[in-house]
């Protein structure tokens, strides 16, 4: 507005009059023109790049899902080229997830191979961590050879942490604990890691119900390790071994209990002995009761819970936790 033609007072007055209108207009902008169109990779990437800054998790989640669902209809070569060119870890993660989706939806396994190569070989640890995250809850564990063992020795703690999370979540959510090779891969990666906290996290969490005799032997060797958290985790893992290894596990744990000094490890031993025998473990537990008076209440709690006669470990564990909370 050419101010020279009107007085400042008039301008001020006009603004005063207009301001509610302007304000109201700002509050109710015109509706967006929503029009469906066929997705293109470039368009999707632009949307995602801009959407990364959105405060709306709903929108970010939508864009993530959209790219994953669209990935199977986009040209693979275009997707792989874009993935290879991309340097921003957040975008790399989206594109890697799209490639993983192609493989997991039954298309070419080379899509996941490209992600594997980058997870192992990219110079940027943030990119490596992002590609590892993109393989979470996928079939990667059975398609990538020794990748997880190598990732667990990565120089970057972030990469190692993401890899450990994948091993845990893949075993839990993809395989529901029933797949021996996936559990063996987790045990091998955990045992081969020099990061004790991650070794303990994996072994303390992953189901060992289908592990091989070799994996069990590895776990048994870890009972003599110097880190108490790793020992406790190995003990926990040995509590869940297949029937063929239960006797050997039980014997190892009973022998260990008397020599072990750390009370947390001893607690883990009591739990694993309970798991290996259910109500049949009560005599063993009673014998151990005298070894460490500090843990007599723990033995009593297990004895009481096992006495309920429940026949599933998840239920026994639930009742034990409830009992512990009530105490």
């Amino acid at each position, binding site marked *: 507005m050419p101010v020279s033609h009107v007085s400042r007072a008039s301008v001020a007055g006009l603004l005063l009059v207009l301001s509610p209108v302007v304000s109201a207009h700002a509050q109710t902008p015109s509706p967006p023109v929503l029009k469906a169109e066929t997705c293109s990779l470039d368009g999707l990437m632009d949307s995602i790049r801009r959407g990364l800054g959105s405060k709306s998790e709903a929108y970010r989640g939508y864009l993530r899902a959209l790219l994953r669902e669209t990935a199977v209809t986009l040209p693979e070569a275009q997707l792989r080229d874009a993935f290879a060119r991309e340097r921003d870890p957040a975008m790399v993660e989206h594109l890697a997830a799209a490639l993983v*989706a192609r493989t*997991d*939806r*039954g298309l070419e396994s080379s899509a996941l191979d490209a992600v594997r190569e980058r997870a192992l070989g990219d110079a940027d640890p943030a990119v490596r961590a992002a590609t590892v995250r993109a393989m979470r*809850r*996928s*079939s990667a564990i*059975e398609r990538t050879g020794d990748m997880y063992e190598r990732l667990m020795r990565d120089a970057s703690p972030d990469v190692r942490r993401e890899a450990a999370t994948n091993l845990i979540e893949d075993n839990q*959510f*993809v*395989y*529901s*604990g*029933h*797949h021996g090779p*996936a559990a063996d891969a987790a045990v091998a990666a955990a045992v081969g890691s020099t990061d004790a906290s991650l070794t303990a996290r994996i072994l303390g969490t992953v*189901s060992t119900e289908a592990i091989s005799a070799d994996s069990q032997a590895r776990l048994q060797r870890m009972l003599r390790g110097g880190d108490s958290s790793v020992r406790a985790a190995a003990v926990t893992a040995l509590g869940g071994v297949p029937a063929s290894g239960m006797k050997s596990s039980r014997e190892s744990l009973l022998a260990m209990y008397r020599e072990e000094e750390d009370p947390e490890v001893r607690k883990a031993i009591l739990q694993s002995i309970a798991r290996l025998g259910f109500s049949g473990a009560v005599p063993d537990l009673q014998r151990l009761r005298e070894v460490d008076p500090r843990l007599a209440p723990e033995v009593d709690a297990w004895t009481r819970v096992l006495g309920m006669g429940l026949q*599933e470990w*998840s239920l026994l564990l639930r009742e034990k936790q409830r009992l512990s909370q009530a105490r």
Partner: protein
Amino acid sequence: MRNTTKMLAALTSLALLPTASSAYSVRSPFPGSVTATTYYSSGTFHGAVDIGASSCNYWGAETGVVATLSWDVSIRTTGVVCNGNGSGNQNEAKHAWSDGYTFRQWHWIKTSDSYDRTCDRCQVGNIGGTGNATGPHAHLQYDRYGTNVTSWYSVSKGQSVNRSTDVGSIR
């Protein structure tokens, strides 16, 4: 009350959107229509979802759970069977969780896709009618220790479905 889940169907995503991080949507393995849910038309208990197709051995039968899962694939029939070849002969893909719940998909025809596989909505065979079937269809069942769960699905008989249609939510 065989029409119960019509209401759920009408409010499908309300009932189905998984709210927990470990919940999964289940989608139709191929385009078709729902031919039975908790009860057959005859009134016989069914306790699962049947999705029928007008054509046999045309569509691939995708695993219905929207997630990458390990599928245990059992082949009991190798030929092209569209209208049933006797109880117990159905081909099956199943995933068993660690708490006694199992999701099963039955009746498809064996193809080169039919092997134990870890995948997300991948094909495990072609739509067919192996086992006890009167036509090509998929039987989707969620059970715990063999007890059928009927609360997971929310489609109704006669409803048309395609591969983006949520049939239910499990876990």
